[in-house]
C-alpha cells in the first residue's frame, strides 16, 4: 500500500521544528499578540476599552481553575456534536436520495428550498416553543445550521458524478443498488467531506449565538455573562475559547474525512 506508516513522535516533532513554514506561523501568532499589546498600551486610542493580552492571560489562568469554564466547553461541544451528527445522519441520506431519485427530489426539494434561506437563529423562538427543554432547542438550532449545508453539498456531489463512472459499472452488470453502494456513494464522499467541513464551522457560529439568546451554560453564555458583568478580559477569554473549540472540531472533521477517503491520502 502507498499509505505510509506513521513516523515516530520524535521524528515528527523534529520535522516540525526544522520546517520554515511552521516558524513563519509561530512568528505570525507572536506578532499578532505583540501588536495587540502595543496598541492597547496607548498606541491606538480606540483600543483603550480592550484588555491587553497580559490581562487576558491572567483571566485565562483564573478560568482554567473554574469548573464552570470547563462545563461551558463540555456543554457547547455536546450541543455542536449532537446537532452536527444529527444533521449528517439525516442530511446525507436526504441529499443522496434527492440526487439518486428524480421523483423523490421533485417531492422534497421545493419544501427544502423554502426552508433553506431561513437563518438558523430565526428558528430560535419556534424552537423554544416546540422543544420541551432549552437544551434540545439549542441542539436543534445547531442541527439546522449544518443540515442544509450537508444536503446541498451531497446533492451537488451526486449531480456531478462523471457519467462514465456509472455507465461502466452498469456495463459490468452491476444492479441499481450495486451502482448506488459501490459507485454513487463513494463518488459522493468528497462532497460529503466538504459539506462536513463547512457545516462544523456553521454549527459553532450558531451554537454560540443560540446560547447567548436561550442558553444558561456554554462558551457563548460565558462570553455573554462576562459582557453583562463588564468583565472585558472574560469576554476575550470566551472568544479565544470559541476559536480554539472550532479549530479543534475542524481538525477532527478533517481527520474523519481523510479516514473515509484513503485514495486521497496517497501523495
Amino acid at each position: 500500500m502507498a499509505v505510509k506508516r506513521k513516523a515516530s513522535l520524535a521524528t515528527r516533532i523534529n520535522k516540525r521544528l526544522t520546517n520554515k513554514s511552521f516558524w513563519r506561523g509561530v512568528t505570525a501568532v507572536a506578532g499578532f499578540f505583540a501588536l495587540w499589546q502595543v496598541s492597547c498600551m496607548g498606541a491606538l486610542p480606540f483600543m483603550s476599552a480592550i484588555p491587553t493580552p497580559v490581562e487576558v492571560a491572567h483571566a485565562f489562568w483564573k478560568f482554567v481553575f473554574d469548573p464552570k469554564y470547563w462545563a461551558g466547553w463540555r456543554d457547547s461541544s455536546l450541543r455542536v456534536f449532537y446537532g452536527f451528527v444529527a444533521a449528517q445522519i439525516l442530511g446525507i441520506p436526504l441529499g443522496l436520495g434527492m440526487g439518486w431519485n428524480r421523483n423523490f427530489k421533485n417531492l422534497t426539494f421545493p419544501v427544502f428550498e423554502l426552508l433553506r434561506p431561513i437563518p438558523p437563529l430565526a428558528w430560535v423562538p419556534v424552537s423554544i416553543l416546540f422543544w420541551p427543554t432549552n437544551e434540545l432547542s439549542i441542539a436543534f438550532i445547531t442541527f439546522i445550521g449544518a443540515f442544509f449545508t450537508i444536503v446541498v453539498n451531497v446533492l451537488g456531489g451526486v449531480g456531478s458524478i462523471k457519467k462514465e463512472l456509472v455507465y461502466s459499472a452498469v456495463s459490468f452488470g452491476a444492479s441499481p443498488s450495486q451502482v448506488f453502494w459501490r459507485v454513487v456513494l463513494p463518488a459522493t464522499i468528497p462532497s460529503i467531506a466538504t459539506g462536513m467541513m463547512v457545516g462544523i464551522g456553521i454549527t459553532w457560529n450558531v451554537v454560540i449565538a443560540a446560547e447567548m439568546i436561550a442558553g444558561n451554560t456554554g462558551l457563548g453564555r460565558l462570553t455573554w455573562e462576562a459582557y453583562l458583568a463588564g468583565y472585558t478580559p472574560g469576554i476575550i477569554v470566551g472568544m479565544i475559547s470559541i476559536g480554539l473549540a472550532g479549530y479543534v472540531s475542524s481538525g477532527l472533521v478533517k481527520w474523519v474525512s481523510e479516514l473515509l477517503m484513503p485514495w486521497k491520502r496517497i501523495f
Partner: protein
Amino acid sequence: MNGNGNACKVGSAQVEVRNVTRVFRIPGQPPVFALKDCTLTVEQGKLTVLVGPSGCGKTTLASILAGYDTPDAGQATINGQAIKGPGPDRMMVFQETALWPWMTVMKNTTFGPTMSRRLARGEAEGRAMGLLNKVGLQDFKDKYPAQLSGGMQRRAELCRALVNDPAVMILDEPFRGLDVMTRELMQEYLVKLYEDTGMTMLFITAEIEEALFLADRILVMTNLPGTVKKCVEVDLPRPRDFKVLASQRYLEIRSEVMEALYEEGAKSFGKLDVFDFPGACAPAATQD
C-alpha cells in the same frame, strides 16, 4: 448498405447498425441529427475503425452500441439480437479515464466479474493478474488510479474491460489526451492485443494515422447528420508495426481516407474555398 452505395460487403457480422437515427431536440432550436439513417457493420474478428470529424456523431453511435442510448429509428444488433441496454458482452473504453478513483487497480479490474458473480474473487484476481502482467502493471495492482500515469490508466482500463471476455470492444477515442510517445506505445499494445486475440473491436478516432495503423477496415463518417460515407479496406500486412507507416500502400490508403475525411472536415467548418478546388486533398495527402 447505405444510400451512397459505397459501403462494404456484409460479412459474418457480429454488430450491425441498421438505418439508425438519433435526433437531439432542444426546444426553440432546430433538431440536431447526430445520426441519420446510419448503417454499418462491425465484422466478427475484425478491427473496425470509425473515423470522422469531431462532432459527427461517433460518440452517439458508441453510446447506442453500448446500450447507454437508444436510437429514435432503426436498430442496432449484436449477433442478431437487438441491443436493449448495457451488458458485459459489449465493453466500452471511454475518452477520459473512467477508472473508479476509490478502488485500487486490482479492485477496478475485478469489479466486473465479481459484481455479476461470474467468477469467485480468487479466480477473478488470478485472471486480472494475468492481464495486468501482460500490460506491465503487475507492480501497480495495489495503487489507486491517481497514482498511475495517463498511459498506465488506459492500460488498466483495457484490462478492466478485457477481464469480462467481451464479445466486442468499443473504444471511443481511448488514447485522446495522451502524449505522442505514450499514444504510439498504446497503439502498439492494442495492435498486439488484437492480433493475439482476434477480438471484434470497434475503435473510434479522429486521427487518420491511428486509424490506418490499427484498422482492418476504416469507416469514414460524414458530418452531421452522421452516417457512414465511405468504407476503406486496409490491407496492410499483419502483424503490424510502425514500418508499415513508410510503405507505399499506406500512403495510398491514407490519401484515400484523407480525401473523404477532409471534405467532411471542411463541411463542419462551413464552406472553405481550398476544398472546392478539385484534387486539393490528394496532393496534400501525398506530400508528407
